[in-house]
């Protein structure tokens, strides 16, 4: 039973990580960490 729980956790996490990276690389989700480092919300603006 315990092994099944471990397998399910690892599988779900692995899928979530892979999906999030695929989305990130393909631009489906914003890559901006939201840290406000750039301070000008440049991610919301058009590229010059």
């Amino acid at each position: 039973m315990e092994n099944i729980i471990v397998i399910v956790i690892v599988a779900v996490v692995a899928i979530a990580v892979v999906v999030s990276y695929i989305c990130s690389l393909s631009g489906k989700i914003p890559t901006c960490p939201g840290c406000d480092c750039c301070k000008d919300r440049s991610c919301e603006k058009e590229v010059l």
Partner: protein
Amino acid sequence: MKKLNIAFAGNPNSGKTTLFNALTGARQHVGNYPGVTVEKKHGICKYKDYELNIVDLPGTYSLTAYSVEELVTRDYIIDERPDVVVDVIDSSNVERNLYMAVQLMEMNVPLVLAFNMSDIARQNGIIFDLKQLSLLLGVPIVMTVGNKSKGLDELLESIVSVSSNPPANTSDRIHYGSEIEEELQNIQRTLDGEHDLVEKYGKRFLALKLVEDDKEILAQGHTDKILGAVKTSRQHLRTIFGDLPDIIIAERRYGFISGACQESVKSTTELRHDISDMIDAVLTHRTIGLPIFIVLMYLVFQMTFFFGQYPMGWLESFFGWSARMITEFWPGSADSALLSLIVDGVISGVGGVVVFLPNILLLFFAISILEDSGYMARAAFIMDHIMHKIGLHGKSFIPMLIGFGCSVPAIMATRILENKRNRFTTIMVIPLMSCGARLPIYILLTGAFFANNKGLVMAIIYFTGILLAVVCAKLLRGTIFKGKTTPFVMELPPYRVPTMRGVLIHMWQKGWMYLRKAGTIILGISIILWAAATYPKPDESSLAGLSHEEAQNVQLKHSIIGRVGVGIEKVIKPIGFDWKIGTALVGAFAAKEVFVSQMGIVYSLGADTEASSEALQKRLQVDYTPLQGFCVMLFCLISMPCVATVAMTRHETGSWMWALFQVVFLTVLAYIVTLVVYQSATFMHIGV
């Protein structure tokens, strides 16, 4: 004969009227501006096929509408729309006089700058690089001596030229800093309905004056929506800067002027007068500026280590205690897979990263102080000389500085660079600026191998990154991204005492980003890496008779990650890495911090449950040499950036090719540099 309306503006005592008299002679009329007792003089001047109707506006220091002269001058320029405005500058006091020129640039009027009294400036030992200054400001400049009628033909020629070919938009030449720019954009968005006012003043100028609380502009009957937006923006700016927005904007104008003058005005005698200038004389000095920057960064790292060690110890104790408690009260058997997942995977992996949070907070606390005080702008200015030499502008160093935090927003920040070649070059080298995610790797390894020189080694790593970025940029600008650079002004805002609130906000933003990453992607990857380092398990019989450490090694080698590590060992052996480091490097591609969590997982599997970086450091000291530790830091600094950075490079360059190029270029570079360092140090018996 073509007629042109020309307005002469300028500071009092700039020689404006002398120049006006020299041009118009006796053809003058004197009157008053309507409704005020301010004298209005206008005269006629004929030049080639042109008849110039010149108006000598009242002498003012600025166009802020505080005095009636300022108001008259501004209204005349806005209402009468002269074909050309000539701003007469006292060349011997150029920085103060350029303040008005900057305001005229904000109004986007066809402008010519007459650097008058240039003979006195020369006597005072002031030398102008007019070509450079004109390029930086985006307006033509002519040297004149009004009382000797020198430079008049050049001035008239320039006026005629500007009237037929006005310079490109000058209103957005001055960048007021990201916070103010953001508020200006917010206000501009609300101005769409005010067609007449926008037509009259221009959207950016109108927004600027509203943020500056200009009574004259505010009284023009704006909607509640606009006034509400202005109030919110002013309050927001006041909270951030702890001062009135109009004062901050004025400071930014002087910063722009100061930056432009630093690049184009040389003085053979000492004319500097304010405190900022006196500090700049030392901090941006050509010879000692860079060493001061290096020493400051070294002190920042030392401070990070010294004050960070205490809260770091508390966090380590907390995670160690958590692991012990969970193990002690676990209802199942001690070799439970779920228990191992929680203790070895989650606590070792995530805990191993979270313990460095105090260092991250302290580092960004110090960097925020340097940024908010205005020093970081000077750091960029110091680098300007070097950047020019490699074909980039100092402005490229600003995204690079952001790269010390995180490469992703740094790549976004390259949008301030108008030149595509400069921008792409900067994007390619940004990952060489050591981001916050690499800090845990350095802290772990410097603590293990360079306990007495932690700050020094860390500073060496950071400056190696900067140096490599400079060399690579030079290489790229000379080959793939060949071409000319465009001039920019490096703003030098006056020094300010940073507000504690502002510094704490910036520090917390970085800390929160780090924590959020630890709780999401690093948690996920730690779980996957734990599974990959645990399964498949070897036969019990193959572990029989082995010591605890030997059994741990056999188990790891048998696991998926162990096999990957062993698979790449042949490639990484020449640079001093074994299969364990190889497994951690693979994980670090997902996020750099994972290197530390992976080492934590590798060394805690099957061992005691202490999630302490000190325990990990002791294990590393046994397995590796200081040279290997240094080479790991070097490789992590240079090698391929994390997935998020690759994604952002693709987004900003619009091409997978450039993203792939960055990954391959940096990884090959990392390999070559590490190989050279490892092999030559081994040959010379250094750190082995």
